[in-house]
Structures are given as structure tokens and as C-alpha cells.
């Protein structure tokens, strides 16, 4: 699967926030065999230079980075943040977040489309964090996005895939567009489910970072993503409402 012409080494994208320590983060990235790690931008103090240390650590992992515009609520904020991220991280990839509702951190699809258009015209390769809205998806593609990243559930909630119907519809409508479930995944089974639905990748952060053993959980997610992808390739059976005997009826003994 190509994301803007680039093949990632795995279908698991991993966030870098909220880990108990840099060592545990590094261990989780390795255990996940993450294909990309997401990063952000924050104010830097001249004295502490925390960002410089973080950047050295991330570079040492040798995994491509996907900067985000987390925390942005307007088109202007998101576009400016993306421009700053491109310079700092030396990549034109951007995970575009424009939050519209603070309780659910639901994306503002209208602002998202506008920001995506501005950034695409400026040469960015935009990964939009979106709802599973079909019309919004179409608009984002028209705005130049070549990847879509619908939420599974609100960020950090761990609720899994809240709207299976919507996610399935999105996959069916856009069979050739790389789709990533971003946000809301809490368990490896949720990640496997996303891959079984035919999604091309998943983006996980809190579920790994806040696990009791983040490194072990990162490994569990790696297996789940592999299992889900293998299952999808193996063409799962159709569901049905009534039972069908799996053991042949022919030749059954009459013992009553």
C-alpha cells in the first residue's frame, strides 16, 4: 500500500505521546515495528531545550515521522502549524487535525477541507483526521488528499470502532484510496477489526502508551494488525442469520 507514493514498512502507525519514559517509547516503537511515528510541535524553552532531546531520540529510531496539527481549532492555526512542522521535521507529510468540538475532539470537516486545500496547493501531502462522513471524504479527495483517516471513536477514548456501518461504507465507496483508522482504538481486537474491514493501516497512541506494559501492548498490536490484514486477504465468510450445520448431514446415524 502506497501512501503518497511511499510504501511503509508496516501498517501500524504509532503516536509518541504520553509514554512513561523515552526508553519505554523507544521500546514500544520497536515492538510495534511501527511504519511511521506521529510527532507534534510545542513551545520550546531556551533553557530546557526538551524538544531538541526528543528530536534526537526520534531520529535515532530510524522510523519516518508524520507531524500533526493537534490542538488546532481554526484553518489559520492548522495551516501555520503545518508550515512550521514542515520546516522542523523536514517532511511535507502532515496529519491535519482541525478540532471542531472539544468534548469529543470531533474534527471540523468544513475547516478541514479548507485547510487541506490550502496545504495541498502549497505542496503538502495531507493525512486528514476526519469523521467517517462520505460527503466530507469526497470533498477532501477533491481538495487533493490522497489518504483519509477517519476516527474509530473519540481520541483517547479506547471505545474501538463506534460506527461500523460508516467505516464499511467509506471503504466500499473509496476502494482505491488508502484508509487509516485514526483515534479511538483501545484494544488489539479493535485494530484487527479495522484491518478485517479492509482498512490499510491503523494509528494508535493512547492504547499503547497508557497500557500497564506499553512495550508488550505494542507487540500485541503488531500481531493484531498482521492478523487482521491476513484475514482480509483470506476473504472472510459471509455472515448469515440462521444456523447452518458445519458437520455433513449425509450419513448421519439414526439413533433415536
Amino acid at each position, binding site marked *: 500500500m502506497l501512501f503518497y507514493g511511499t510504501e511503509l514498512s508496516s501498517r501500524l502507525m504509532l503516536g509518541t505521546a504520553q509514554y512513561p519514559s523515552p526508553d519505554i517509547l523507544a521500546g514500544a516503537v520497536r515492538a510495534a515495528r511501527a511504519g511511521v511515528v506521529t*510527532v*507534534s*510541535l510545542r*513551545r*520550546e524553552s*531556551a533553557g530546557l531545550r526538551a524538544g531538541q532531546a526528543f528530536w534526537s531520540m526520534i531520529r535515532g529510531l530510524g522510523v519516518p515521522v508524520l507531524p500533526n496539527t*493537534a490542538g488546532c481549532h481554526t484553518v489559520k492555526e492548522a495551516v*501555520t502549524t503545518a*508550515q512550521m512542522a514542515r520546516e522542523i521535521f523536514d517532511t511535507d507529510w502532515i496529519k491535519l487535525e482541525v478540532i471542531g468540538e472539544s468534548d469529543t475532539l470531533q474534527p471540523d470537516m468544513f475547516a478541514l477541507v479548507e485547510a487541506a486545500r490550502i496545504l495541498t496547493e502549497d505542496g503538502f501531502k495531507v493525512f486528514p483526521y476526519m469523521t467517517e462522513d462520505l460527503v466530507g471524504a469526497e470533498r477532501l479527495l477533491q481538495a487533493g488528499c490522497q489518504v483519509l483517516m477517519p476516527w474509530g471513536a473519540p481520541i483517547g477514548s479506547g471505545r474501538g470502532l463506534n460506527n461500523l456501518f460508516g467505516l464499511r461504507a467509506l471503504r466500499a465507496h473509496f476502494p482505491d484510496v488508502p484508509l487509516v483508522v485514526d483515534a479511538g482504538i483501545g484494544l488489539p481486537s479493535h485494530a484487527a477489526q479495522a484491518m478485517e474491514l479492509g482498512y490499510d493501516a491503523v494509528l494508535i497512541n493512547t492504547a499503547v502508551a497508557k497500557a500497564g506494559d506499553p512495550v508488550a501492548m505494542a507487540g500485541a498490536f503488531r500481531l493484531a494488525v498482521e492478523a487482521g490484514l491476513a484475514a482480509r486477504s483470506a476473504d472472510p465468510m459471509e455472515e448469515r442469520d440462521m444456523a447452518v450445520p458445519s458437520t455433513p448431514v449425509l450419513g448421519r446415524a439414526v439413533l433415536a
Partner: protein
Amino acid sequence: MRILVNEEPRDVAAATLAAVLDELGYGGARVATAVNGDFVPAARRGALHLDEGARVEILAPMQGG
């Protein structure tokens, strides 16, 4: 001249953004800058003169999801 750096008031002697970064101790750091809400690429910092009260944002790589 008094300016706001990451929302904190700072008195600086330098006039350009590049010189202010050096004066404040950011020399050599991997940072991105914005002035009054607009991105200022590294290549333009030397020519950008700050006005009294300018709002300067200095950002660096950080953990993110």
C-alpha cells in the same frame, strides 16, 4: 524593546528575529518560528525586523499522537 515570546514578555536589544533567537539562547536549536501568527521560515529570520509588542512563537519537536 519589549516583545512576547511564547506569550511571556521579554526585553530584547536585538532588532531582527534571527538576532533575537541568538540573544534569547536558541542559537543552533531546531526550532520553527512565527511572528504575529504568521510562519517565518528560517531563511527569512535575518531580514525580519520585529516591532515593539511583536508576538513571537518558537516551537520545537514534541511528542504527539
